[in-house]
């Protein structure tokens, strides 16, 4: 990003020298900044790897809606933005181009999300996650807001990457711990289902997802049943 003025302005807006919250605080303030300044109903900063997504910070009434829906359904614009490392901008989820993700679009609309914008966090040829913005009314982000969002994504990405080497600062490690904690049950259940069905882990995950979809419950709820041994998949 060559526009130093924009980045400096945003950094100033999200800096808090008195805060002891470190990286976690910065991420949170970036999300709050986005929600406040860009007329959003939700903003989430998500780290992704092949296996999973971890929400580092989120804000707004739809803070985690979009991320959760995508992990439940296994499809969505954020996953695509991460994989392709290109922004995915959906100003109107009810419009035809949202049919790339039929299940996601329908579920998001049902949850009150009408527009969604995913910006990849990427470094060279690798993606590390996304900055996801959503709105409860249709409409494209203004050019100015989009530019701000791109810069915010860069700030978040840089903070994550360089925190890995901050001496004595375990902020990032702790952040990753917390960020992933709500999915621990899902991973454990996936392993158990794979054993019960003598299946591969990806297939077990697909079975878990299918069971959730069919029953109208969340994967998290079903996973809890599995881990607490109320439900088996081989019966």
């Amino acid at each position: 990003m060559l526009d130093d003025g924009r980045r400096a302005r945003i950094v100033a807006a999200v800096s808090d020298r008195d805060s002891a919250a470190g990286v976690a605080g910065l991420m949170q303030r970036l999300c709050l900044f986005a929600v406040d300044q860009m007329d959003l109903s939700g903003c989430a900063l998500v780290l992704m790897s092949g296996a999973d997504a971890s929400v580092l910070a989120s804000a707004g009434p739809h803070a985690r809606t979009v991320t959760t829906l995508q992990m439940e359904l296994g499809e969505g614009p954020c996953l695509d933005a991460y994989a392709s490392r290109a922004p995915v901008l959906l100003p109107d989820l009810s419009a035809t181009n949202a049919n790339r993700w039929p299940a996601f679009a329908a579920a998001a609309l049902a949850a009150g999300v009408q527009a969604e914008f995913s910006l990849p966090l990427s470094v060279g040829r690798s993606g590390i996650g996304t900055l996801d913005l959503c709105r409860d009314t249709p409409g494209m982000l203004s050019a100015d807001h989009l530019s701000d969002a791109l810069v915010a994504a860069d700030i978040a990405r840089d903070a994550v990457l360089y925190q890995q080497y901050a001496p004595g600062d375990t902020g990032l490690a702790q952040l990753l711990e917390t960020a992933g904690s709500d999915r621990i049950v899902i991973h454990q259940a996936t392993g158990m289902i794979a054993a019960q069905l003598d299946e591969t882990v990806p297939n077990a995950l697909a079975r878990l997802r299918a069971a959730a979809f069919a029953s109208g419950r969340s994967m998290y709820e079903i996973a809890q049943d599995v881990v607490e041994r109320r439900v088996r998949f081989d019966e």
Partner: protein
Amino acid sequence: MVRQTTLARAFVRLADTLVSDFDIVEFLHGLSTDSVEILAAEAAGVMLTDGRGGLRLIASSEERMRLLELFELQGAEGPCLDAFSSGRSLQAGAADSRIRWPVFAPHAAEVGFQRMCAVPLRVRTDIVGALNVFRGSDVPFTDDEMAIAQAMGEVAAIALIQERALREHSLLTGQLQAALNSRVVIEQAKGMLSEYLNVTVSDAFELLRTYAREYNRKLSEVAGEVVDRTIPSAALTSRPG
């Protein structure tokens, strides 16, 4: 008189490195030979920082042993070190050199170098090394020549800094992805083990850790192999005694 086409070619070559992968040594060798040609000099070399305030020779216009030795000496004193630590270009004739670098200068004279200049490889406050150019006779570098040398030094610095950033970034993203993935696979392994061995998830974790310790392997690697069944779960049951 600077040859315009050579100069143009040198800058195109430098600019090329900004958009593609390149080999540092080859790149700096090219910079050295180009400098010699463009600045009507005898020899040139590039030293880069070792990260601890010192400099190392990375490439030179020729492999002549005496030239290499001359750069060796510059570890302690010399034009490269001055340009690197001050961040400013400089040049010196035979007499000046003897005053500035009493240990280094006689050796340079012995090799036949009567005049030298050095420019930092620098982008704003980031100084990554220095380019050193030698002439066989004490003909001062003109202002134009110094400006050209400085510009070449700057473009080279940009390429080097970019390459360093890319390398660091790949390392960092690789580590981040590995950290994220290993947490997932460890939890999956705990679940799988607890099911196969009929133990609690926390007991399963202990078994994983014991196995990893016993075979001196990373926990995440062991977990990965449990999950893809390379290691059968039965192999992790605690042994008697």
